[in-house]
């Protein structure tokens, strides 16, 4: 089912947690709501689930306006961060619960539980209680309970954040494959930009209750709408340097870069992969000193000091440099992003009409 938020606002007392939020999600899409904690992404999801009331604006599932539909009649499935398995029921009973509530008869209930259990490879666990399961197993059961009833959409609230790093990466892949297989609209909330990039067909980046950008992961990465998105997406973060352009030259303390743009106060943004480090002097390169290097195995992150600025560069794995060693930087300025200085614009100009 398609899902549409139209000018949705949520206030708790005087504070607006979600502010004029509009988004149109197509049927079958995997959309990730991404943002730092407190940005309103979970509240947005809870409003869709009916666990929070909507202060103003409308939410549609398909063509149905669901603002006033009680949670139990919205026919959406949710996976909670805490998994929220019913501790007094066996795993089979947990998975069957949504069917039992809908008065599906016993035979069909058992068949569907068995089918989902097979799909998620949790058949041996069916007779156990949730407390006897590991985190990863509980996660699968929570997914099974969501999948078993074939809802109009899946809502997931940071479902992987309680797993250890290795398991998280594994489950991430399985989740993506599962969604592809089921083809059901999925809305997924996370603060982890790597999860957003890998899972989403489109990412909605939020900050302080406002939508910043809604686009494919690639476009979010390559064409961030503003400084916040640029900094939040990508690891390590984009380098941001405040300065101004005068007569075709970008100036900031000791940095001088020829830029073919009109005069303005700007922040220049460069991804670490567009900063190249050399231990030998190069023509026209910017001198810098090494702050520290981090070997990642397949590559090296080089943290550099240029005057007062800290800049991160990606270098090959065999790059070696001592701390405080003098190096030279070449910047791919044609890949640079420019943001108006000081105030970061919100995602207003690109807002789609819904």
């Amino acid at each position, binding site marked *: 089912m398609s899902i549409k938020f139209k000018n949705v606002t949520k206030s708790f007392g005087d504070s607006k947690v979600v502010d004029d939020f509009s988004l149109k999600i197509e049927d079958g899409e995997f959309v990730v709501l991404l943002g730092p904690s407190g940005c309103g992404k979970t509240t947005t999801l809870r409003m869709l*689930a*009916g*666990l929070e009331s909507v202060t103003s604006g409308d939410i549609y599932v398909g063509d149905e306006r669901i603002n006033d539909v*009680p*949670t*139990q*009649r*919205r*026919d*959406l*499935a*949710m996976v*909670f961060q*805490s998994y*929220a398995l*019913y*501790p*007094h029921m066996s795993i089979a009973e947990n998975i069957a*619960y*949504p069917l039992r*509530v*809908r008065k599906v008869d016993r035979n069909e209930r058992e068949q569907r539980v068995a089918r989902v259990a097979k799909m998620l490879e949790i058949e041996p666990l069916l007779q156990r209680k949730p407390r006897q399961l590991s985190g990863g197993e509980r996660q699968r059961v929570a997914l099974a*309970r969501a999948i078993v*009833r074939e809802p109009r959409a899946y*809502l997931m609230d940071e479902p992987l954040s309680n797993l250890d790093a290795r398991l998280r990466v594994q489950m991430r892949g399985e989740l993506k494959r599962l969604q592809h297989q089921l083809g059901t609209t999925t809305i997924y909330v996370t603060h982890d930009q790597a999860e957003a990039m890998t899972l989403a067909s489109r990412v909605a980046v939020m900050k302080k209750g406002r939508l910043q950008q809604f686009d494919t992961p690639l476009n979010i990465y390559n064409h961030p709408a503003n400084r916040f998105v640029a900094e939040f997406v990508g690891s390590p973060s984009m380098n941001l340097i405040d300065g101004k352009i005068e007569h075709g030259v970008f100036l900031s303390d000791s940095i001088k870069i020829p830029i073919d743009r009109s005069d303005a106060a700007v922040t220049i943004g460069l991804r670490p992969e567009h900063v190249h480090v050399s231990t030998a002097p190069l023509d026209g390169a910017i001198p810098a000193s090494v702050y520290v290097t981090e070997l990642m195995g397949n590559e090296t992150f080089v943290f550099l000091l240029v005057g007062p600025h800290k800049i991160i560069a990606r270098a090959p794995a065999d790059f070696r440099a001592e701390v405080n060693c003098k190096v030279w930087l070449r910047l791919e300025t044609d890949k640079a992003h420019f943001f108006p200085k000081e105030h970061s614009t919100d995602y207003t100009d690109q807002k789609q009409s819904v």
Partner: protein
Amino acid sequence: MKRTRIFRTGWLVLALVAALAPVYWMLTISLKTEVDQFAIPPKWFSFTPTLQHYTDAFVTRSFGQYLLTSAIVAVVSTFFALLIGTLAAYALTRFRLPWNLDHKLSLWILSTRMFPAIVTAVPLFLMMRDLRLLNTKLALIIVYTAFNLPFVVWMMRGFFAEVPRDLEEAALVDGDSRLGALVRVVLPLVSPGLAATAVFCLIVSWNEFLFALVLTQTDAAMTLPVGIAGRVTQYEIKWGVMSAAGVVAMMPILVFALAMQRYLVRGLSLGAVKG
């Protein structure tokens, strides 16, 4: 090491004797003839047992009737106190009421337990008289339900607060109604607490004396404690009958508490230790 163990055992024995001596005394008196009851020195262990007082109490006199009244009043009032109190406690823990009413109401409910019971005895007597409910079981059921309610609400509030909200929200999203989520998900999780609360309500109602004395005077409506106290008259004190009735009065609660022991311990320590 050894000395502390002896010390500890000593204290336990002392406490046990202090607690059980009156019970033992009551039990023996109920089985002694009236002559043996007053023998000096007291006959602690060797006497000819008789069931005379039991037949006297339950066959000749109406103690069977009192027992039945006590049981009906205790069970029915506990049932209603649990039903109303549990729903109230759930609402008070889970819903935000305007003007902070959820907190204010809770305190207000508790405040009804802050004055001595005797203060309400006279008004209750007058109200029950006007309602023509004096000497009825219904009067006692209403009063006991009302007096147990604050206790149920406060106990259950604590137990409900321990249940993670996520579970109910998951139940709602899964398609269950509020009431369905309460019955299928929340109540099973607080059942030890519910059992503990039920035991307390039963004990309180079963043992209650003051209101029963004020509101009931006839054999048909009298509860066991009032009936027992009634054997202390101007002319004689029927120790044997009173003891026999006392032994019988003790039994149901003892059996019930033993049966519920597992829940009692879990219910009362719930919240103290997580998980």
